[in-house]
């Protein structure tokens, strides 16, 4: 396989992906423009299986998610070739086939019109991403891939049970028949099925107790694949939760069972806080971003939770439910955009320095200016700071939570407010985490030779990143127009008026929550951005106005010593105060070994090592694994290899069966 054929396969493969993604975006936009809640596309597939007829159905909800998939897929397609050339570890065929099959199966899951296509596409998505995770063949990748595929498979087993239970009741695999049959489901059975589905999709979405695979699998994949996995695959799981919670299993009339909304809200808050807390203590850039995916999935689930609590209660709460759901969906799109951007820029850093550990990087802003500014833009977006899209969806979630708590009666209102406080805490922690990530990686002195001779990323990689950055800025500055995209899915799930009628009641430039004129707040992001722009420009002119004294450069003040990169604040040090405050969750362990010279007081070398533990990992998963292995060893000792025991087993089984079932 000469280099040329490598290059050709790579470009061809990614061109196919780009074409597919563009087609997907086109179909999605067409799907959503309809705005009606009826199914827009209904394409029956040829009759593969005698016992099931497969069909593709595209309605408002799947169209919206398809758009999210297509946007990130376009960016990944543009970004891919250059990244793989610089970073290729395994044969390009696996990479190219894998990513095309991965994006294709995700799109198929979204458009599946019946249970069997959904399951087949769902597992196909898992297999493709597994292949991409283990493609590099390193030992850590194989282990990460194993944990990922096993947990994903366990999730699918749960989904299989739910789908089959519904299919048996409905008599056919088709979603329409299932929807009809689900109406007559008795209450408790409906809740059991919903919680099973929630657990099944929760594994894939990375909700907290089931998130253990996510920080290991996403960094192992190539960056544009982990952008797709983190940005979009988690959203396909969210799509599943929405499809089951609000569409298939929704009771025919009246509000959803309260337990559903509360579970989703509590899980969302937990995932948000724990996700960001663990992200704070990571040194590996991609592991940090993976943990942030857990946090953002938590925020999305909060929006869905409040929407489920308020849905179908009539009056103001319906509008608030639509607002909450619109907030969650917008955050899905936003997260896909800025998480994709951050993963792509982390990939650019990896290409330039072959290093992802923040402690080895530093000073990249001067060497990779474009990547640095794009990473900063992504960081500002993910920390939900005003001018950009992160703030818009978090602002809407806050409004939904506050006004929702006012509508709900007192006890649950207080609980909703506490989850809003949790959301605020998450915002603060995310800001701290990304100051660390941006500051330690891009600013200050380069800490290693790799970082010192890093070069700017290839223009095609930058193009991919700029595309996603543009999406972030547009949704941030002109959220009103983004609202029209949300009409189709929200009306499909909750009926009633679409969010654009509720949220941008006074024109696309103003976001208003609470709908009717009376109460509720309005904010015009466009006006805010314009004023901020004017003020910042004015300040810039003042700062850069040529002065007589001019500017000169001098070494940083380090109490008189010659400044060297060892003085720079490392990621561990930056996160030290928070590790101290949240010690119960982290249970930090520290090992210090000193090497002294002749006299014990002269330190020749000091080795300091500290690590933070993932609670869910130790208490549940490690114990489960050791228990299973011990049990398996014990049973394995039963096969002694002696023939007499084998004959004994046969004889005893016969005697026991005769005794138990002989007389009948």
């Amino acid at each position, binding site marked *: 396989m000469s280099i040329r054929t490598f290059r050709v396969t790579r470009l061809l493969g990614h061109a196919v992906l780009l074409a597919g993604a563009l087609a997907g975006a086109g179909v999605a936009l067409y799907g959503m423009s309809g705005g009606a809640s009826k199914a827009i596309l209904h394409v029956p597939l040829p009759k593969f299986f005698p016992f099931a007829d497969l069909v593709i159905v595209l309605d408002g909800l799947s169209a919206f998610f398809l758009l999210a998939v297509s946007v990130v897929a376009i960016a990944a397609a543009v970004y891919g070739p250059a990244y793989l050339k610089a970073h290729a570890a395994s044969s390009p065929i696996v990479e190219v086939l894998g990513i095309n099959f991965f994006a294709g199966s995700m799109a198929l899951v979204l458009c599946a019109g019946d249970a069997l296509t959904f399951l087949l596409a769902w597992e196909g998505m898992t297999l493709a991403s597994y292949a991409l995770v283990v493609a590099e063949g390193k030992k850590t990748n194989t282990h990460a891939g194993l944990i990922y595929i096993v947990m994903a498979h366990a999730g699918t087993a749960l989904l299989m049970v739910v789908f089959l239970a519904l299919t048996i009741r409905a008599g056919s695999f088709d979603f329409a028949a299932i929807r009809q049959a689900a109406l007559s489901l008795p209450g408790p059975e409906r809740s059991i099925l919903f919680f099973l589905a929630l657990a099944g999709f929760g594994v894939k979405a990375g909700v907290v107790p089931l998130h253990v695979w996510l920080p290991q699998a996403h960094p192992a994949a190539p960056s544009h694949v982990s952008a797709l996995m983190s940005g979009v695959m988690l959203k396909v799981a969210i799509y599943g939760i929405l499809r089951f919670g609000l569409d298939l299993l929704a009771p025919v009339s009246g509000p959803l069972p309260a337990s559903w909304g509360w579970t989703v809200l509590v899980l969302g808050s937990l995932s948000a806080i724990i996700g960001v807390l663990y992200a704070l203590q990571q040194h590996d850039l991609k592991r940090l971003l993976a943990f942030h995916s857990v946090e953002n999935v938590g925020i999305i689930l909060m929006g869905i939770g409040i929407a489920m609590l308020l849905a179908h209660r009539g009056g103001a709460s319906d509008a608030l439910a639509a607002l909450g759901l619109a907030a969650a969906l917008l955050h899905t799109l936003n997260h896909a955009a800025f998480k994709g951007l951050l993963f792509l820029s982390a990939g650019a850093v990896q290409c330039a320095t072959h290093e992802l550990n923040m402690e080895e990087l530093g000073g990249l802003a001067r060497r990779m200016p474009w990547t640095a500014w794009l990473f900063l833009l992504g960081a500002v977006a993910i920390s939900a700071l005003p001018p950009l899209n992160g703030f818009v969806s978090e602002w809407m979630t806050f409004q939904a939570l506050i006004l929702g708590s006012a509508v709900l009666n007192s006890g649950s209102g207080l609980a909703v407010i506490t989850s809003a406080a949790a959301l605020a805490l998450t915002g603060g922690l995310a800001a701290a985490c990304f100051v660390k990530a941006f500051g330690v990686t891009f600013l200050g002195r380069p800490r290693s030779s790799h970082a010192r001779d890093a070069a700017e990323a290839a223009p095609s990689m930058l193009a991919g990143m700029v595309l996603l950055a543009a999406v972030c800025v547009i949704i941030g500055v002109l959220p009103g127009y983004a609202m029209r995209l949300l009409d189709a899915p929200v009306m499909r799930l909750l009926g009633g008026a679409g969010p654009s009628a509720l949220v941008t009641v006074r024109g696309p430039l103003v976001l208003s929550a609470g709908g009717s004129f009376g109460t509720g707040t309005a904010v015009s992001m466009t006006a805010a951005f314009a004023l901020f722009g004017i003020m910042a420009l004015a300040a810039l002119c003042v700062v850069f106005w040529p002065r007589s004294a001019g500017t000169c450069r001098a070494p940083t003040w380090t109490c008189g010593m010659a400044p060297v990169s060892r003085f720079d604040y490392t990621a561990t040090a930056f996160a030290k105060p928070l590790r101290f405050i949240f010690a119960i969750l982290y249970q930090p362990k520290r090992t210090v070994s000193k090497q002294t010279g002749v006299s014990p007081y002269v330190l020749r070398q000091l080795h300091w090592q500290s690590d933070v533990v993932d609670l869910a990992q130790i208490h549940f998963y490690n114990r489960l694994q050791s228990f299973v292995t011990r049990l398996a060893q014990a049973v*394995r*000792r039963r*096969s*002694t*290899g*002696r*023939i*007499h025991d084998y*004959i*004994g087993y*046969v*004889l005893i089984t*016969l*005697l026991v069966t*005769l*005794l138990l079932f*002989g*007389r009948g």
Partner: protein
Amino acid sequence: MSIALASYLIGIIGSLLLLTMIVILEAGDLYRAIYTMAVQSFLIALAGAVLGSATGNIDLWVIAGLTLAVKVVALPWLLLMVIHRMRIHRKIEVLMPVTVTLAIAAAIVMLTFYLSSSLGSVTQVITGNALPIGISLMLIGILVMMSRRTALMQMVGLFASENGIFFTAMAVSQGMPLIIEIGVTLDVILGALVMGVIILRVKSSIGSDIADLDELKG
């Protein structure tokens, strides 16, 4: 010979067969076990003759003759030839104390009689108590295989259990179709030949008894 007399005779032969089984269980010496197995086969052949005369079915006579030729003469000769070729000492090592095996054998007999009591209707078809005797012979044969160390004793146990099946098969109304009986006997011989070849090959190559090998485990 009338049916009533035949079923009486079958009853006696059945009890004699049980006796031979006890002797095999209790045998401490290899030669005695093989000779008892031969006696047992002779009793089966006798039962065949009795049933043949009672039901007037020529096939049963042929089967009796076949059993006589194969089970009473050929198989013991094969086993003795293998012992001679392997020059192993004649003492039988035992995995479980003999008393325990005898107790289990008693339990098995009681279980079979308890089971077959529910099969009232089958007595018109299978003369005498051939069914419970057949089952208990077979199960005790397997018990012998389980509790004795050397491969040869396992072969003896196997042939004893097959005798049990033959005894029940013959007692069924006019007996099994002839071709099936011949086929079964042919298979028994072939099985014995293959086992003998394997035992000799292992004895010659690694010198230990095949039944002691237990590397393949877990």
